């Protein structure tokens, strides 16, 4: 793999939430939504984060913009630690990191026209005068494949796919370097989902964008990502280039996850690894390896020793005792 410039690096990110209730004030229950996550994103690439509900992928994405304040860890963006910035400086930084959400109707203020919505980021970051801004908005609408008549209309007058185009246009408005896309196509129909995925790819090429693409859909992630990180219970269990990860998954969880995705081909006869039981609650995570309760290959050590994310092959990191000697 060609070494390219790192745009963003997350180091040991953690987010613990206090859970109100049974714990009482002295021993609050900690929900470890994200428990020590590290990764880096190079300029121009797409890093996919995939995992099931409650694995902490969304929390991770939001922490990068400090929409959720990390409990611990560092976020280095172009070498600068975002966690050390004041609120004011952080707001300025958000010009370079933008976000696209899952449900476009909820993420667009229902009382604003599309024009107002797209101009808002420009105004906030003091870009251009009135006429320049309007010009830019018109250009943006065209870029994402919308008609100029969209300018004066309200979000509820559009279909789901069009709304997501509006949301993407808003993210693009301030020419960000990184876009965090949190399940951007999950709420869409299959035929529309393909349109939006193609649009995202086209935009990446045209504007040299870097994406952090969060999704639970392994097919979508494979399609769009250059590298993929798999999360389980607040930790990254495996991270590798897309081809390596999908063709040669190392972690038993990744193997199971990929094998259980239904394939739209009745002739396909790959082996399925059926996992037993439910995902444990993040407020009462298992000891040792968080996956050991469901792992078909669990060993004695897995119950007590937390595995670390280590390189097993070139640029292929996995957090599993099967690949690394257990250190006492």
């Amino acid at each position: 793999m060609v070494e390219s410039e790192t745009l963003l690096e997350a180091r040991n990110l953690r987010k613990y939430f206090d859970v109100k209730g049974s714990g009482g004030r002295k021993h609050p229950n900690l929900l470890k939504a994200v428990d020590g996550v590290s990764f880096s994103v190079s300029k121009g690439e797409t890093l996919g984060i995939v995992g099931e509900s409650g694995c902490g992928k969304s929390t991770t994405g939001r922490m990068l913009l400090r929409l959720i304040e990390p409990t611990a860890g560092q976020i280095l963006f172009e070498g600068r630690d975002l966690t050390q910035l004041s609120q004011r400086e952080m707001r300025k930084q958000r010009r370079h990191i933008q976000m696209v959400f899952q449900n476009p109707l909820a993420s667009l203020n229902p009382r604003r026209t599309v024009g107002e919505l797209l101009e808002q980021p420009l105004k906030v970051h003091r870009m251009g005068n009135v006429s320049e801004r309007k010009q830019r908005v018109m250009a943006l609408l065209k870029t994402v494949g919308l008609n100029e008549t969209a300018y004066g209309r309200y979000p509820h007058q559009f279909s789901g796919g069009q709304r997501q185009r509006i949301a993407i246009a808003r993210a693009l408005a301030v020419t960000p370097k990184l876009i965090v896309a949190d399940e951007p196509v999950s709420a869409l129909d299959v035929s529309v989902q393909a349109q939006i995925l193609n649009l995202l790819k086209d935009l990446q090429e045209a504007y040299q964008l870097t994406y952090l693409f969060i999704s639970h859909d392994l097919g979508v992630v494979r399609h769009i990502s250059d590298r993929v990180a798999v999360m389980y219970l607040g930790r990254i269990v495996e991270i590798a280039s897309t081809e390596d990860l999908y063709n040669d998954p190392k972690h038993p969880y990744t193997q199971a996850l990929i094998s259980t995705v239904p394939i739209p081909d009745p002739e396909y006869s790959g082996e399925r690894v059926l996992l037993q039981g439910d995902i444990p609650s993040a407020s009462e995570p298992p000891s040792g390896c968080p996956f050991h309760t469901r792992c078909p290959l669990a060993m004695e050590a897995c119950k007590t020793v937390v595995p670390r994310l280590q390189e097993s092959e070139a640029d292929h990191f996995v957090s599993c005792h099967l690949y690394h000697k257990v250190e006492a």
Partner: protein
Amino acid sequence: MTGTILEVSQLKTSFFTENGEVPAVSDVTFRLEKGEILGVVGESGCGKSVTSLSIMGLVEQPGKVVGGHIAFKGEDLTQASAKKMRQIRGNDIAMIYQDPMSALNPVHTIGAQLMECLGLHHKATRKSARRQAIECLERVGLPQAEQLMHYYPHQLSGGMCQRVMIAMAMICEPEVLIADEPTTALDVTIQAQILELMKTLNREFNTSIIFITHDLGVVAEICDRVLVMYNGRVVEQGTIHTLFKAPKHPYTKGLIQSVPDVREKKQRLYSIPGMVPSPGEIKKGCPFAPRCERALAQCYEIEPPFIKYENGDAVRCLLYEAEKKEVTTHGRIGDFTRSPQPKKVF
């Protein structure tokens, strides 16, 4: 294990709103064979859920079944009395839903909700009902069934709730099970468990299943035959082997091509242009014509016929009219020759 158990012909269900009659389902025709799993696939608003509610007689105001027949073991359900429908629901035809958490009553225990079914259809003693309920919970793979009887839905995970729903649907051993997007709200690993469970139940009890989903992968994995729906109509029907290998309708083709594949990376996804029309939006011609790359001028004018083939496959598209073998404009059930039994996958 042969024979047709449910025949739906020319079903039409409309909603009566301030904007007048909006057809959610117009002209849906299919038959369900004993012991098969029939997939119904389509995007949001295509009428797949309304079709299932019509069969159950549960379409709510302002919706109404306005035409067609639903023949269950020879009886037309569209003409059945309310009392007869109540006897059939839950006992002969049962249903499971997309969101298992909200489909269970939050203020009653799992046990009470399971036993309610038995109380409604069989005059069982409390003790035997309880025993049956526990057995049923064990059958769907729930551990500690005894304790589970006293639990409330909010104390269980989504996957467990869906198992409870399946137990509830299967407790009276119905002949038809309608599953409306039963795995959409669940995670992939849990989805795999539920699909496995449904396959097992289908095999063990020879229950016919109508499996509604938007996920082509799920269809390929679990179904024997598939209906593809678009804008309230069945646009294509066939066994999963013919449908996935040689789809006929441009919509089916587009749909299959636009799914990202977990096995290989396509450079670019095929995408169907335009957007899904809302019910009643397109008044004339083929509803897919505005998005169809192969649309002919007359596609915007004529409603295409439902063309049926010897082997039981069918497609609703003008492109195939030329090579038609047997055409019926309105697709009456009796008009097409019996298809050979679909090949079992397992």
